[in-house]
């Protein structure tokens, strides 16, 4: 059975000052099975982030609906963890307190919170920084904390909106490996939005390609690279073939987006 079902979800933003309304997302349908790692790949402004925000419940679709385990999504909730592109750690809380934010909101006993925090601090390699404030951390560390914070809540699905978009290439590559390692160990269902082709292939079980604005699903490409995946997989012929194919798909869309 599908874990997450996106049924004809579209989003139109009303026109500003009497202008014509903007269609950000054409009706999109997508099914995500339990333990899937899906990346949504598309050029800037194709509505991929809008789609993810609708799944998170932070935005409402103009048409269609989102079902998680058969229940319609009506607003944000603990069953969908989200990591944003911008740094959204609470600056007044330490790394550990950030990770425990959702747990405290649930009213979980402190001892249990500590246990979960310790697990994810360890998983994300942040144990030495647990008492640091976000301002004292690098961008990569902040996003690691954000991932730990979302996972600590034990969501049914993890939503990532270009989480490594603001990081430099080296850090970005390490973060992809870290995320993949966590997924291989815990098999969470993941929906990951990115505009980076290599990133989309490396972490995913399936890549969903979106067209230029107004966005719609253009192609779905299965990634059959074996797990556990090592970073050296990026230099294999299979990887290159996938990359070549997706590059073509995306290039057409990028050209279309640039022409608008």
């Amino acid at each position: 059975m599908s874990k997450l079902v996106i049924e004809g979800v579209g989003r139109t933003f009303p026109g500003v000052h009497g202008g014509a309304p903007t269609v950000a997302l054409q009706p999109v349908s997508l099914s995500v099975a339990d333990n899937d790692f899906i990346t949504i790949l598309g050029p800037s402004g194709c509505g991929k982030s809008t789609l993810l925000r609708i799944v998170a419940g932070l935005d409402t679709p103009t048409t269609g609906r989102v079902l998680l385990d058969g229940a319609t999504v009506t607003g944000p909730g603990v069953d969908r963890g989200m990591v944003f592109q911008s740094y959204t750690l609470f600056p007044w809380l330490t790394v550990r307190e950030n990770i425990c934010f959702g747990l405290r909101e649930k009213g979980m006993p402190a001892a249990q919170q500590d246990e979960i925090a310790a697990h994810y601090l360890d998983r994300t390699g942040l144990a030495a920084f647990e008492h640091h404030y976000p301002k004292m951390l690098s961008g990569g560390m902040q996003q690691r904390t954000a991932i730990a914070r979302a996972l600590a809540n034990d969501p049914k699905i993890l939503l990532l909106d270009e989480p490594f978009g603001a990081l430099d290439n080296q850090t970005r590559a390490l973060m992809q490996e870290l995320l993949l390692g966590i997924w291989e160990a815990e098999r969470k269902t993941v929906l990951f939005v990115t505009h980076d082709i290599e990133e989309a292939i490396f972490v995913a079980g399936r890549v969903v390609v979106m067209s230029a604005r107004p966005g719609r699903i253009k192609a779905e490409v299965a990634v059959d690279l074996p797990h556990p995946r090592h970073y050296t997989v990026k230099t294999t012929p299979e990887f290159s073939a996938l990359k070549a194919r997706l590059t073509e798909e995306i290039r057409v869309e990028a050209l279309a987006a640039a022409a608008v």
Partner: protein
Amino acid sequence: MTPLKPIPARHRVALGIGFFALFVLAWAAVSFGGLVPKTFLADPLTMLREGGNLFARYGFAWDVGITIWRVLGGFVLAAIFAVPLGVAMGAYKPIEAFFEPFVSFARYLPASAFIPLLILWAGIGEMQKLLVIFIGSFFQIVLMVAMTVGSTRRDLVEAAYTLGAGARGIVRRVLLPSSAPAIAETLRLVLGWAWTYVIVAELIGASSGIGHMITDSQALLNTGQIIFGIIVIGVIGLISDFAFKWANQRLFPWSLA
């Protein structure tokens, strides 16, 4: 000099003290040099001597104490009511829509113009002084706090929602802590204004306090005492400002770079 280039801490202190010294020197030059009649401007030494007199013979310490008490009383009273209202307005748009137009209007009503009315209503006792400061501070705090809370980073609020926070959680665990340093800064600013209001209230109708001493000295043409009173107000303001800054740094270490 290069634009925006920082300077060493000791240079900054030396320059800051330098201007104070220059100011006093200029004052000494015009007063001792006889450029200005003594009746209008006492020289620095006379001012200090008169200040000593005030404390030793006229019980000025009590006046200073009563003025501080009035400022703090009126200010704390205003803050107790204004901060929660400001937070509620910043967090909930219907509450803001209800109060904001009136508060914005009331903010422009000059507190000092209320003094004659307040003397009619409350006499020249303590209640009248507290009310002047309350009126002068309350609306300002409400508006600034509401603006601070209302401009909380939306992505932090969204992150909190995805972590399971409800309306209460958003207000208590996101809006309040994220606004706290700016609210403290607002209070520091308004406390400075409260000092102006208390002196005006004391100049117009009072039997004690620094402002009352200043009007008495004016009647006696004692400019030394007047200047000393003004300087005392400045020094107390400076001390309270430092105290606030120090407390803010202690309370909100995360907001420092």
